[in-house]
């Protein structure tokens, strides 16, 4: 399979900070890829450069084999609705429906109408009067109905309730299977989206800390839980990514693949060996890299982020 998106040492520097710091990654064609990381990790900057909206400072970015910047042939294959996407003044949803087909060869007007119905979007309300969730729904409608060979979703779920998010995930999967294409989706809701993803890229402070298939990623570590002393004994010199303790019990995320020796120790110590979820893995990497846990690891912090998003 060939790569739909490829970057080499991609770097973006704003005044004093590096929004992207030598990011090299590759995303295969026709996969659903998750772009994970905390706010400010560089997710939107990466997508903006790939969509030709921001200029890179150095390095290479390639979409469908070519530099996307001012490349009409590449950009015509691309759809990118930002989390804070702007629309022409006074535009209504009906205007978006009318103008979007001019931009996409594969636009499916019937599917767009169906999506509008699924998300109960009002056609005649000015977009600036829509709620946060309705704004997200507009971006979802454009992203899905455009059938663009490369589609970016930038936190497409903001303001949507669990039901609407479920509808989005179902429609995304269904349409992806009928019309395979490359989808890059940034998200904080890792547990919710993990099963949809085939590939995952994790950014932190502008650096890439993970770029692999979800399968390889989750196979790159495992959890071990039981009494603190037995866990410590069985862990030995292995690299611990994350430790959670509750009373005398302890659960550790360990890098690598469990071997026979570990299984034997686990049996002897009454320990449980389990796979790591994508969410746990990202949280574990957060601890490893920055010395502080990733946002996803802290329910309280996650709630705060959501509350902030709701206020916007």
């Amino acid at each position, binding site marked *: 399979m060939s790569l739909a998106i490829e970057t080499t040492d991609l770097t973006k520097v704003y005044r004093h900070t590096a929004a992207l710091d030598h990011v090299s990654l590759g995303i295969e064609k026709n*996969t*659903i890829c998750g772009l994970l990381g905390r706010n400010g990790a560089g997710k939107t900057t990466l997508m903006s450069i790939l969509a030709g909206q921001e200029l890179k400072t150095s390095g290479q970015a390639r979409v469908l084999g070519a530099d996307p910047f001012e490349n009409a042939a590449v950009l015509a294959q691309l759809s990118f609705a930002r989390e804070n996407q702007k629309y022409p003044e006074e535009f209504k949803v009906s205007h978006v429906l009318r103008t979007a087909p001019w931009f996409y060869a594969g636009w499916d007007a019937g599917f767009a109408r169906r999506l509008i119905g699924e998300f109960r979007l009002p056609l005649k309300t000015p977009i600036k009067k829509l709620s946060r969730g309705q704004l997200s729904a507009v971006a979802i409608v454009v992203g899905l109905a455009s059938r663009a060979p490369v589609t970016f979703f930038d936190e497409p779920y903001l303001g949507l309730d669990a039901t609407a998010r*479920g509808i989005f*995930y*179902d429609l995304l*999967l*269904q349409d*992806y*299977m009928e019309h395979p294409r490359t989808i890059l989706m940034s998200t904080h809701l890792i547990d919710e989206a993990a*099963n*949809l*993803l*085939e590939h995952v890229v994790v950014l932190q402070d502008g650096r890439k800390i993970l770029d692999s298939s*979800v*399968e390889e990623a*989750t196979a790159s570590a495992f959890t071990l839980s039981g009494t603190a002393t037995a866990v410590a004994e069985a862990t030995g010199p292995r690299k611990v990514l994350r430790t959670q303790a509750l009373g005398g019990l302890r659960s550790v995320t360990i890098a690598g693949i469990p071997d026979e020796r570990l299984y034997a120790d686990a049996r002897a110590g009454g320990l*449980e060996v*389990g*796979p790591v*979820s994508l969410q746990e893995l990202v949280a574990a990497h957060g601890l490893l890299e920055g010395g502080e846990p990733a946002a996803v690891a802290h329910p309280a912090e996650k709630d705060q982020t959501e509350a902030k998003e709701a206020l916007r």
Partner: protein
Amino acid sequence: MDDSKPIFIQLAEEIEGRILEGTYPEGTQVPSTNEFAAFMRINPATAGKGLNRLVDAGILHKRRGIGMFVATGALDRLRSVRREAFGDQYLSPLIDEAARLGIDSDELIAMIGHRAAVAGK
């Protein structure tokens, strides 16, 4: 579903379970990868991996352009594999828990006999 296992193994075990209880008899077609993916809300590549695991184990067989079917002999094969795993998967934890609760083996056997009688099996 059991979250302690990778999703493709969960899918494979779920299908095995359906075959064992007769929902998918030998020789019949099972839903497609995409149908399983949509149903479980998982990436089709993951669903495909679960199904391929069963193909590799000889439980399902592919008919090009048509779909996947339950292989002849799948039931026997599944039963023997599961019988082998039964001790580790079910008996060991049962015995461990019984020991924690102070149930000795005679009592445990009696309890199992009673349960089975009540369930009519």
